[in-house]
């Protein structure tokens, strides 16, 4: 089966290409000017993007659509919605059998989406294109929580690891109180391959909901174990530190109030009923973190 992969040079794409075997023969859609140095040896490439697909779908049996604007808000509507629509049209014309879409946890119908996130809004909009229209092919969508693992060439997860590796003592929350739901990129990749094997519909990939202490503690063990994590309960932040900083701000000692100390960060948490779901056997959340750390170390950034 020949599979066109969009977003092939991204985090999930590179992991997917590395894992695809003989049954799924990848064709990587690579944007002009994008580096091909990270692609596995011998992988077939076709130059183009969602605006100019050209003959990218010629002789292709399936499409895995990973490409998305994740950070640039201005590009989200054009890439994530209009781009997906163009790809669906081209796929119908090419007569493919399977279309697999990488969505995000907040776009799943059973999960409350964040109305402030342009990214989630764009993925919800793409949802209608996928499941509220008739397509001449199977449609599957994958809904992962917070993905970690190797080949994070854009260092999108480095912000969670470096503070642990670069401090002997860490007192979370330093500025925000975070909760996480992390999954291993290999399990996202495994789920995509599961979809290609004829399993349409929606597929969650979720881990357990985790606290800052669990996540940072595991990262600390995986780095060199020299960082001590000393968590401060949220109630202490809310009723102790915030009012104290507010007072300092009032008398002119602190330049800002304490509101920032009560901000809560959420990295992919789901309702308890939806935790630890995936159509494939899952790796542990700890391994998602330790493999991330190991890869950062391998490439010289830790």
């Amino acid at each position, binding site marked *: 089966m020949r599979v066109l992969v969009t977003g092939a040079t991204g985090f999930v794409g590179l992991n997917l290409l590395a894992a695809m075997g003989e049954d799924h023969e990848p064709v990587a859609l690579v944007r002009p000017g994008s580096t091909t140095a990270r692609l596995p040896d011998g992988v077939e490439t076709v130059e183009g993007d969602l605006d100019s697909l050209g003959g990218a779908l010629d002789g292709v049996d399936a499409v895995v659509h990973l490409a998305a604007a994740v950070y640039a808000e201005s590009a989200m509507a054009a890439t994530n919605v209009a781009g997906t629509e163009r790809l669906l049209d081209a796929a119908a014309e090419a007569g493919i059998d399977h279309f697999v879409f990488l969505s995000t946890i907040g776009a799943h119908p059973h999960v409350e989406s964040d109305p402030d996130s342009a990214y989630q809004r764009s993925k919800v909009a793409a949802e209608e294109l996928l499941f509220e229209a008739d397509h001449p092919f199977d449609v599957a969508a994958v809904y992962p929580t917070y993905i970690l693992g190797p080949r994070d060439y854009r260092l*999108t997860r480095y912000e969670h690891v470096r503070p642990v590796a670069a401090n002997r003592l860490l007192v979370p929350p330093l500025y925000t109180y975070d909760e996480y739901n992390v999954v291993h990129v290999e399990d996202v990749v495994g789920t995509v391959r599961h979809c290609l094997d004829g399993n349409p519909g929606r597929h969650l990939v979720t881990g357990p909901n985790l606290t800052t202490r669990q996540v940072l503690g595991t990262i600390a063990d995986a780095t060199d174990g020299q960082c001590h994590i000393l968590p401060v309960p949220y109630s202490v932040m809310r009723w102790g530190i915030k009012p104290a900083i507010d007072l300092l701000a009032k008398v002119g000692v602190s330049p800002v109030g304490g509101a920032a100390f009560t901000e809560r960060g959420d990295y992919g948490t789901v309702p308890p009923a939806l935790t630890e779901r995936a159509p494939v056997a899952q790796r542990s959340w700890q391994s998602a973190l330790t493999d991330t750390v190991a890869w950062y170390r391998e490439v*010289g950034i830790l």
Partner: protein
Amino acid sequence: MTLSVGVVGAGWMATDYHVPGFDSHPETRVVAFAEASDDRRATVAAELSLPGYPDAAAMLAAHDLDIVSVCTPPSTHEDIFVAAVEDGCHVLCEKPLATDAATARRMADAADEAGVVTQVGYLHRYYGNYQRAMDIVSNTLLGDVVEVTVAHHSTPPTQGWYYDQSVSGGGVVRDLFPHSLDVLLDLFGQPTVESASVQSRGGRAVEDLGRATLSFDGPTATVSASWTQTEGVSRVLVVGTEGWLELSPERLEGDVHGRPFAFEHGDLPMVDIGLADLYPASDEDPHRARIHDFADHAAAGDRATTAPASRGVAVAEIIDAVYEQADAGGNR
């Protein structure tokens, strides 16, 4: 089994770095040295309690050596190097390997014939920050590298032979370019010299300022070096399609897709709270690191050192081409 080391040339490079370097390695011990100057030989023999010989041939005849370490001026390297490898010794040779590429080629051929382990004494890659940078670049974290800028400016050397073309093989280009070229060759392969210029600002017999633009398969590199500073400076800037990094021996910083990273002496901070950071005290010793790395390879009989004599040939070819370009363009 401990490998016996003979050091040729007993200047500061030998006594400050090579002798302590080999003596602190578990598998190597310095057992003899050669030094042409009678006074210096007597002083060092007394200081180190080692037998000293007037030349390498006498030392090789008197001892069954496993390793020869060459710390003499460049024009003397060929005879010492060839005699040592023909005697079956592994050789660590200070840079520049030779005064020109043809000489370097004869030396590399002799080493290949003898099947011994060789390394040229390039230093930069043994700084923690350079190791980080080489890992980051070779693992393509910066995307495709488009541009490298190297500025390596130093104080004038104190020994007179540096300014004697027949002994040194050139000026600051022959002296300082090798450290950077070693790293660039390792990362990007063989370049062509696009343009070059050399000048003698201090009225010296050899150039004390040199610049070259090199085209690699991918990036373009600009390398400059001088002997005109009161305090030296060494900086490298690497720009790729997805990020950049800048380093000195002390500090490395950069950015990938807007996500910053920083190291000092190859280490992460002990404390980094954004507004302020604190790095661990550094006991970095790149001289020891390069000598230990060579000793490891010699002990294992592994010829694939970081910079075998063939690297010395490639470096000498570029430097020869830099001088030719500078002459041809009237930039001298």
